[in-house]
């Protein structure tokens, strides 16, 4: 199979750039309005030009037919070889220039290549890359690299079960029952009121065995933390952060810090509780940056808050921009950190953005069908992820012009979850953006800015 696959890949690569089906409509205000409303983009920039991250939307075939790619024959060959799973890993868009209302675009496709077999967390697989380019007349206006992993799923569903499971006994069951009920419970002595974690059968202070619990506020401070790199730990992808969190109630607890890069974690950082569903049976109490991450720049926060107010009556599903917790909890902002954006992924948001990007794949709007295909819910499509990265950067860096967005895709962003987008300026032309959901990173993006005009 491998040799035949590689031969086919060489043939396809030799074909070079080929014309693809025409873009159905010229760049137009109506589709742009649908898109900006669905994504919550209130930028005044789009009266004459289209949002650059919309570029793929112009060539989406819609319900009429399935979008063909330059890699279809390779993907089919991999299916036959047992590599039936597919997951998108990279999407990199380069914008030569913004396109104007009224322009009629055409597209071309080009096969990139195949690498593999590689051992991945999902199973053995091949990475397949292809390109799409968009032209106005003879002038190229944008190009996109798209890469998927085609993998052979490991047997059964057993591999999805989190391998590191807590033992639960009579003295600790209340804690895990609490987690299942969406509460973080801390044992309290029913006689003297002493709080205690980890819990135990006898109060070390008054020796009472009668216990109850309080429900923690879910806010705390990182007392210490580590970043695990080596050796491999089953069920987790390094590097990951383990923190000792001192709860506002006074007890300490160990958990992972999700939703921000390891280098952003620091002693004294304020964190808040989030429940991470590891599999069908196990949920873990975890932590993420409090108040929407590292939003500490007062001026920027004020702007973000003002935007939110203006948006109060906007369509359901738009976000609320994160506002720093009042009072400043002593957390420090990392260098170059930009205020966070929090997007509530309501079903309306997931569905309206999928349709506004002309993506009618059922997993983005049909819950029953999504579940039948092994997803726990409908989930955000990639065209929207690209759009949200664009929106985040242009809102945080007013006046910027985008030269390109390169994203690595992570865990799915399911309806019902919250997407927290954070970013930092690496230099004056590069912004790193991270979008995290409760399962971990949904997207890690590098955004390239052009010299502002």
């Amino acid at each position, binding site marked *: 199979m491998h040799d035949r696959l590689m031969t086919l890949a060489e043939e396809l690569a030799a074909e070079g750039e080929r014309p693809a089906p025409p873009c159905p409509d010229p760049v137009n205000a109506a589709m742009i309005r649908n898109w900006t409303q669905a994504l919550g983009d209130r930028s005044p920039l789009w009266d004459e030009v289209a949002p650059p991250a919309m570029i793929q939307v112009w060539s989406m075939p819609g319900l009429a037919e399935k979008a063909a790619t330059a890699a279809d024959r390779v993907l089919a060959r991999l299916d036959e070889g047992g590599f039936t799973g597919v997951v998108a890993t990279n999407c990199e868009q380069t914008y030569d220039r913004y396109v104007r209302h009224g322009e009629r675009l055409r597209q071309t496709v080009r096969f990139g290549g195949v690498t593999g077999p590689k051992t991945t967390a999902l199973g053995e697989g091949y990475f397949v890359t292809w390109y799409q380019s968009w032209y106005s007349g003879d002038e190229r206006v944008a190009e996109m690299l798209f890469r998927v992993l085609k993998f052979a799923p490991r047997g059964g569903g057993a591999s999805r079960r989190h391998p590191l499971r807590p033992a639960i006994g009579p003295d600790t069951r209340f804690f895990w029952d609490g987690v299942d009920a969406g509460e973080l419970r801390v044992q309290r002595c029913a006689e003297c009121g002493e709080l205690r974690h980890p819990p135990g059968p006898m109060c070390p202070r008054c020796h009472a065995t009668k216990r109850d619990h309080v429900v923690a506020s879910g806010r705390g401070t990182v007392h210490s933390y580590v970043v695990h790199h080596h050796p491999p730990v089953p069920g987790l992808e390094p590097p990951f952060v383990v923190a000792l969190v001192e709860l506002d109630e006074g*007890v300490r607890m*160990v958990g992972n810090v999700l939703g921000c890069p390891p280098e952003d974690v620091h002693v004294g950082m304020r964190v808040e509780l989030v429940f991470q569903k590891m599999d069908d049976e196990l949920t873990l109490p975890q932590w993420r940056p409090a108040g929407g991450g590292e939003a500490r720049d007062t001026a920027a926060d004020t702007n973000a808050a003002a935007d939110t107010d203006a948006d109060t009556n906007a369509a359901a599903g738009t976000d609320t921009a994160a506002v720093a917790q009042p009072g400043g909890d002593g957390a420090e902002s990392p260098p170059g950190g930009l205020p966070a954006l929090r997007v509530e992924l309501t079903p309306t948001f997931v569905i309206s953005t999928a349709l506004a990007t002309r993506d009618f794949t059922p997993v983005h709007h049909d819950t029953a069908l999504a579940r039948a295909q092994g997803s726990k819910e409908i989930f955000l499509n990639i065209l929207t992820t690209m759009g949200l990265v664009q929106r985040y950067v242009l809102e945080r860096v007013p006046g910027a012009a985008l030269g390109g967005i390169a994203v690595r895709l992570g865990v799915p962003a399911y309806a019902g979850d919250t997407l927290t987008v954070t970013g930092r300026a690496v230099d004056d032309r590069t912004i790193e953006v991270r979008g995290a959901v409760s399962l971990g990173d949904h997207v890690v993006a590098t955004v390239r800015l052009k010299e502002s005009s």
Partner: protein
Amino acid sequence: MTLSGKAAIAGIGATEFSKESGRSELRLAVEACIGAIRDAGMAPSDVDGLVTFTQDTNSEIAVARELGIPGLSFFSRVDYGGGAACGTVAHAAMAVASGQAETVVCYRAFNERSGHRFGQAAIGPDRSATSTGLEFSWHLPYGFATPAAWVAMHARRYMHEYGATSEDFGRVAVAMRRHAATNPRAWFYERPITLEEHQASRWVVEPLHLYDCCQESDGGVAIVVTGADRARDLPHPPVSVKAAAQGSGPNQMMMFGYYETDLTTLPAMGIVGDSLWRRSGLGPRDVQTAILYDHFTPFVLVQLEELGFCGRGEARELIADGGIELGGRLPVNPNGGQLGEAYIHGMNGIAEGVRQVRGTSVNQVDDVENVIVTAGTGVPTSGLILGRDQGRSRTRGS
């Protein structure tokens, strides 16, 4: 009543230290034991007691069978990983002093590199709802599953509180590798490292680099403990057990001392240190070298503080400028420690302590009267003060 001076170490034995012994753990144990017994000028028939670690896979009766020991009147085990090391000698000394046994061999042997590796994720331990299983259950599900990670949590807070840096930890590794470089038995014989190499070594668990972590080793070590009077009739000068102590701190757990205590301290080691000084009548100025358990560099700093060699947060100053290297203010682990010689769960450190008092180490410190030896940190632990036999020191003293 005190144990001080009632028992002595008369013999030490060890296998080679390797990454793949190619032999069973029982064979390593009995090779080390017979070596120690012969070093003491004894025969297995002189031995009537055996002590090992709870974690050791070689039962006392199996070791006795192989050695042909006709009968045992004392056998005991000490728990909590490497924290057991000096505890085995403490138990042996108590047995000898109280007349429960005449001569006790303490041993530890394992294929810890070629067999079960302690540095790998600890996903195997008891996951039933025993007290230990529940302790691990607050940590393992988060991938917090390796000794390096558990120590790193302390190290990060220590850096935060006292301004210590990764380079301060690195100086411990550099010192141990310098010592190992001139010890032909050490795995890292003739392979010293620089601080730059330490800094360039890959992250294991931030803030710990690879060179902050001790080796994984195959091997065995055994120690013969007998009565002080009897020891004086044996070939080597007796090494007196001037104090032996075990210690466990408040709210103690296995490696998870995070919940009520100050992360920059090791309360169990503080208890051991206080007991050792009190029972021996000695203090930090009375030891010429220290054998400190060095599975991970940061806890060497904390031990120096817990044992009173310097104040809280001041260890990095003691370590600076070669302070714990041969020729420094307090040479630590002249054999290269577990970072440089081998990781035999602290038992090779006791053997080095014996050699330093005998005056036979390849990296001998001048005029050693007393040496302090410690065991595993972060767990309930133990310690010893070994010194020259009082009778001998009187004749030498002039």
